């Protein structure tokens, strides 16, 4: 028994199953982060001052508390990883498996770099006694970037799988393997996209 349209597109919809599936998944992720962003807006417009008081001092700009240079660097890292991700798919389209390995490896590496920088960032906050419980600003900051980081970890796991054991499929079913990389890429770009909104709204405003 074969399930239809696992690798080829259904003629009337023009997509294969997994692609439609991942878009539905991303739609639900949009609503997940949408719920968090709505909560952020709701709390922020209700707060007299944002970020507000922390450790006896009053702050009116987030970039006085958070480390913008590190976050900018992280933005660049994530954007770069998106490019390598899409390049790894393009390499497969050009049947260049060797280049695929290279680009996919870079994507995974960038993912790790992002997490390491994030860990430094969190670490220095904790050192200064800046915990989520201190204020709603910090609570939002840690919750939203934390959830985003979990998504990065998820993406790294998926990508690492396709770099390692999952890559065997290239030999047996290159078309389906290329599809899988496309789908994994859609997810990875989405994680990048969320960060593109998180970065200015949390760090810069």
């Amino acid at each position, binding site marked *: *028994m*074969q*399930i*239809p*349209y696992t690798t080829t597109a*259904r003629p009337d*919809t023009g*997509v294969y*199953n*997994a692609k*439609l*599936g991942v878009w*539905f*998944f991303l*739609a*639900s*992720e*949009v*609503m*997940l*982060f*949408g*719920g*968090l962003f*709505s*909560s952020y807006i*709701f*709390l922020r417009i*209700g*707060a007299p001052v944002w970020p*507000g008081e922390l450790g006896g001092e009053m702050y009116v700009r987030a970039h006085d508390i958070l480390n913008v240079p590190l976050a900018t660097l992280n933005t660049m890292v994530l954007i770069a990883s998106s490019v390598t991700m899409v390049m790894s798919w393009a390499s497969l389209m050009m049947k260049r498996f060797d280049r695929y390995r290279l680009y996919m490896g870079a994507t995974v590496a960038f993912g790790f770099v992002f997490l390491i920088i994030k860990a430094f960032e969190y670490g220095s906050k904790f050192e200064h006694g800046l*915990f*989520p*419980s*201190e*204020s*709603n600003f910090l*609570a939002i900051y*840690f*919750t939203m970037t934390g*959830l985003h980081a979990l998504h990065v970890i998820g993406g790294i796991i998926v990508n690492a799988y396709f770099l390692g054991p999952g890559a065997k499929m290239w030999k047996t079913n290159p078309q389906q393997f290329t599809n899988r990389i496309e789908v994994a890429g859609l997810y990875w770009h989405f994680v990048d996209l969320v960060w593109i909104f998180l970065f200015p709204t949390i760090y810069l405003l």
Partner: protein
Amino acid sequence: MAHEASGTTHEVAHEVHDDHHEQSFWRKYVFSTDHKVIGIQYGLTSLAFLFFGFCLVMLMRWQLAYPGEPLPLIGQLFGDERMPGGTMLPEFYNQLGAMHGTIMVFLGIVPLAVGAFGNYVVPLQIGAPDMAFPKLNMASYWFFFLGGVVMLSSFFVPAGAAKAGWTSYPPLANIETMGQTIWLFGMVFLITSSLLGALNFLVTIIQLRADGLTFFRLPFFVWVQFVTALLLLLAFPPLEAAAVLQIMDRLADTSFFMPSGLVVSGEPLDIAGGGSPILWQHLFWFLAHPEVYVLILPAMGIVAEIIANNTRKPLWGYRLMVYSLLFLGFMSFIVWAHHMFITGMGTNLSAFFQVTTMIISIPSVIILSALFISLWGGSIRFTTPMLFALGFLPMFGIGGLTGLPLGLAPPDVHLHDTYYVIGHFHYVVAPGTILALFGGIYYWFPKMTGRMMNDMLGKIHFWGTLIFMNGIFFPMFIQGMAGVSRRLYDGGQIYEHAQGVLWLNEVMSISAWLLALAQIPFIINLLISLKKGKEAKDNAWDATTIEWAAAPSPPVGHGNFVTLPRVYRGPYEYSSPEAEDHDLPQHVPPKQLVAEGA
């Protein structure tokens, strides 16, 4: 999985039992990826949860009918921290109430309506060999199962299960005991499960429809599952966000839902403050209103199938029903704050939500009316499933109509959080959805097992259920209008104004226990028919939809159909004037084609 799909459909049906040389018991029945097995797993698990949730409420009904009196026989078994000397503690009552609501909604009705019926029937009705993602389907079931286990385990942690209601409103939920944290983690599992399930249904329905099965040839049940899946997919994530925030509030001491200056038991709380309890309500009801449609839409779909089949004529206004359904699904995302009229909402916003609520009632009324009109002039077969479908119509009608006053702010100020509300939504989900689900079980049982259920027992089950359900829920309207609040440990004894209606508590409780007895014929019927039921034809009800007309009963183990069908027409071409009043199954080629092809 190759199987010997030769021979007649009857032979195939028996071969299904012989292919365990290919698959171990575990792969075949436990970690199966076959949508039929998963559907049955969902069905059995959710029936067990429904029964469990019902047991919880039967305990509560003892306390409501005879407040403070020790529960005879079994009361002692619950231990001193729950029912010392057999008398229920208020804390335990609250646990029972919160867990009853949670279990019935998230572990009972939805998994039965969507996980079981959706999973089993949708691929068959669209002529697909399985769901689009069988492994995700399995994962979805196991997340659901885990979520259930986590929820149940919360009864055994210190101070017991969650006590803040199924709505988990903060600040109360934030300062609750450990059970609430477990509730939140349980919800995260359940949400994950339903997200995986929902996207699987959507892709399956869009991608795996048989050749010729256009959207407007889909059985209404498939449409209903499609819209339900969309609601689950897009409405659940904000609740997941809310659950994450509440977990942070509870475990990391943040103040997302905690206002400044909160004082608990005389002690100011040591928190940052500045959060908003109303925020939780918005996030919660953003899910929970669409969720009520998730509870009712599959029931409407089942009833539509049964009615078309048993009136032997097409549904009246099929297209109109589909458009209404789509409109209803869309609107269900912008009515949520009608649950929040008394939270100090301003008049503009309240006007907006009253208007959208009145608007959304229109498509529901259209669907219900179309189903009523479909009965007109039919030569109705009063089979057991049909009785349940017919019972559904007025019961859902009562549930829906009593909702209108709740959607208008002025009466809602009076009725909010009274037993009137409890009566209203139970009419929708219990005599409404549950009757339809029972109907669905009687209707599709022959498909799943190849055997019929007993008609006599079915009818006894129907009448008992219908009567006692009304005995439980109708008095709730009376109590509610008299001002009896919900979530009361003593059923309203301390209220002067409630004295006149307190006697109804006993009526409702006795009805609830009798309702339990009325389920015995059903359980016996289910078990006995499995082995001893009359053998069913492949098309046990002479239906025109392809799950009956084109697949053996039970369907082929892997792949469902002997050969994948092609579809030529709409789903309910019963007694077609084009064919001398014969029924036209969806997959039979038109006469010319037969002549040419053969």
